[in-house]
């Protein structure tokens, strides 16, 4: 009689993990929402409710937020692109309404400095590391230097 090969611990563990992961994925949330509505909701998070305290129109239940949501939905239904809608909002309310600041000369530092830090810092690390590695052999730590000093004193 041929014995069925028992699953190895590893494979069953893997399978277990997979099932566990699948269980946790909230399947019921995947009911298809209309693309337009999803696009509108994404845009809402970018638009500041102009009469509220730093809230987007997605979060605010103020009257004006409702009006703005309605306008944006209408714009999307009319076939406008996100860029056109942003432009229209900017023309109407100015920079204040956009939670995503425009890429302008005065906003250049805001948009680029963090990435510049990564770039310059990375280059710095990369170019300096050679002499660092070379000098490793010769450097003494503070403790070692202290000990050395004590030894030297004893010699004197």
């Amino acid at each position: 009689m041929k014995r069925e090969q028992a699953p190895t611990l590893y494979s069953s563990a893997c399978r277990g993990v997979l099932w566990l992961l699948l269980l946790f994925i909230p399947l019921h949330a995947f009911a298809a929402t209309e693309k337009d509505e999803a696009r509108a909701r994404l845009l809402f998070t970018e638009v500041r409710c102009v009469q509220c305290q730093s809230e987007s129109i997605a979060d605010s239940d103020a009257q004006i937020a409702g009006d703005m949501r309605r306008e944006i939905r209408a714009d999307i239904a009319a076939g406008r692109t996100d860029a056109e809608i942003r432009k229209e909002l900017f023309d109407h309310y100015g920079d204040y309404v956009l939670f995503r600041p425009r890429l302008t000369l005065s906003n250049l530092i805001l948009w680029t400095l963090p990435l510049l830090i990564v770039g310059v810092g990375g280059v710095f690390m990369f170019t300096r590391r050679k002499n660092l590695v070379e000098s490793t052999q010769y450097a003494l730590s503070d403790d070692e230097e202290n000990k050395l000093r004590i030894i030297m004193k004893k010699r004197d």
Partner: protein
Amino acid sequence: MTHFNEIGSYCLVLAFSLSLGQALVVAAGQTKPLRGLARYAEGLSLAAALAIVISFGVLIYAFIRSDFSVVNVFEHSHTDKPLLYKISGAWGSHEGSMLLWCTILLVFGAMITLRGGGLPAGLKHKALGVQGLLGAAFVGFTLFSSNPLWRLADAPLQGQSLNPALQDPALAFHPPMLYLGYVGLSVVFSFAVAALIEGRLDRAWARWIRPWVLLAWSFLTIGITLGAFWAYYELGWGGWWAWDPVENASFMPWLAATALLHSAIVMEKRDALKAWTVFLAILAFTFSMMGAFLVRSGLLTSVHAFAVDPQRGILLATILLMTSGAGFTLFAVRAPTLSPGGLFAPVSREATLVLNNLLLSAALCSVFLGTLYPILMQALFNKTMSVGAPYYLAVFGPIMIAALAIVPISGLMAWKRADLKGVLQRLMASFAVAALAAAIGAILYRGPTLLSQAEYMVGLLTGFWLILGSLRTLMQHLDFRLNRVGKALRRLPAVPLATWGMLFAHIGLGVFVLGAVVESHQKLSVMQSVAIGDTLKLGQYNLTFKSLYKQAGPNYDAQGGAFEITDAKGKLVCEPRPQRRFYPASNQVQSKVALCFTPLDDLYIVMAEPQMAADGPNAGKASWQVRFFYNPWVRLIFLGPLLMALGGVFSLCDRRLRLGIVKKAVKA
């Protein structure tokens, strides 16, 4: 009974004088003839802490007794308030919270004396001197411009009560936790300045500050999480983090402290990154003070901000500029004289930690710019602008993802010189499983755009990678082999607590990332006007408005809706009861959110005020604006940081930190 308050005021003056004395004896002790004076700073720090604790105790007692002869109690309390909120009212205002800040500051100063047995006397006394100076500045500010124990000539019979939004358990504990974090960093600052004055920065110093950084970081983590949780279920907007300037103000010291935590490890192990670590130590407390300043300056409007008073703002800004300005100046003068450390191979654990610091600094920079840019644009060019979530997602997000991606690699790397190829090979399986899970998640999720689909997948990958990669690190420590599981498990108790701390912190981070990614991408919501009997549909859930009910609370009258949620099969999920609470004392209405607990997801219902519909199907009937959210995996967002803070506590309990091993080593 009112003489109690005078004792409190007296003790506040005493605490100010003692702190000033503490700074002065240390300063005097730097001259040769008065050298012996510096050690009196120890006793003075204990006395100052005692005085301020009494003063703060008196304020709390005045709140408990509802002693309205104290202005602060009159303005922020009411006899009908439950005891917890009477007590938390003591730090619910600008003045009271300043006193809390000072209390923690001086108590931590005393802790330097009490716990600093192994410290060299010179360093300890200089640190106490700096701490005394900070204490004098902040206690002086509280005493002269924001005294919470100020009295009224005629005590009113009733108080004006606390803002109802602040009457919440999470918010009762949020400020103390946050301040323990903010002010814990003051000790690190004092040690940094003291070491710069001494001109001695060595591995021992890094070890001395590490428990303080860990302590402050853990409290800060808990404090920010409580704040986010409060914003989530008390403010009724369904979100938990808005990149609001005040939230950012608490996040910046956290980022700086996180970077400091990691660079101090490098300094302790490899005697490298000295100047950078000391710079971060000064920076972290600078951001703490900036947080305190921003909230009180009137520069920002936010739900978390205190009442506006420009004069106090200017005073606080002066303290901030003088203390951190002095710190940074000292750093600029002394940093070049520090023995250059920074000796390490490009492939080593210290190199990955340096990379982590670089990325964290860039991330910190983006939060800093995003917070201050609108203020600066307004002040300099009179232009209004906004910086919000889309900016942070675009700039902060990728930098942080990069920082998180190297975490598991760093955990498996050896100090000094590591084998990158070997490390990557060992992480292959973790990465494969994480990628598979992320891919499955991304396929199941139908994002509105390709970009959001990609964001979702990268986010899931990062979260799973952090968790699985950390588990792989644990396996490494246990020398885990599939055919010798028992042997590996027996090694569990031998894993050092500091390692557990690291694993918990990184796994917690992964848990948080998963929660944040799933919640932000899969959240559903609907807002509609409903009358009794109406049903709202959201995803697979149906919310039915059954009836209205009334309830009398301790200091409010509530009107609530009894709802019923059923799933697609018609099975009852839960019966949420959101409320609208009217607080007669302050004549304010507060919406109370109802949460349905499913293991990971939240169903979140909030009711707005009733209205009479003029037309439509509900004409002539009263209806309520109801917002109904489905927040998947939102629990993980709050669970993750708690795991992280727990990790901090584990690390703190590690024997290596408690014992003065370094001290012994130096003696030997």
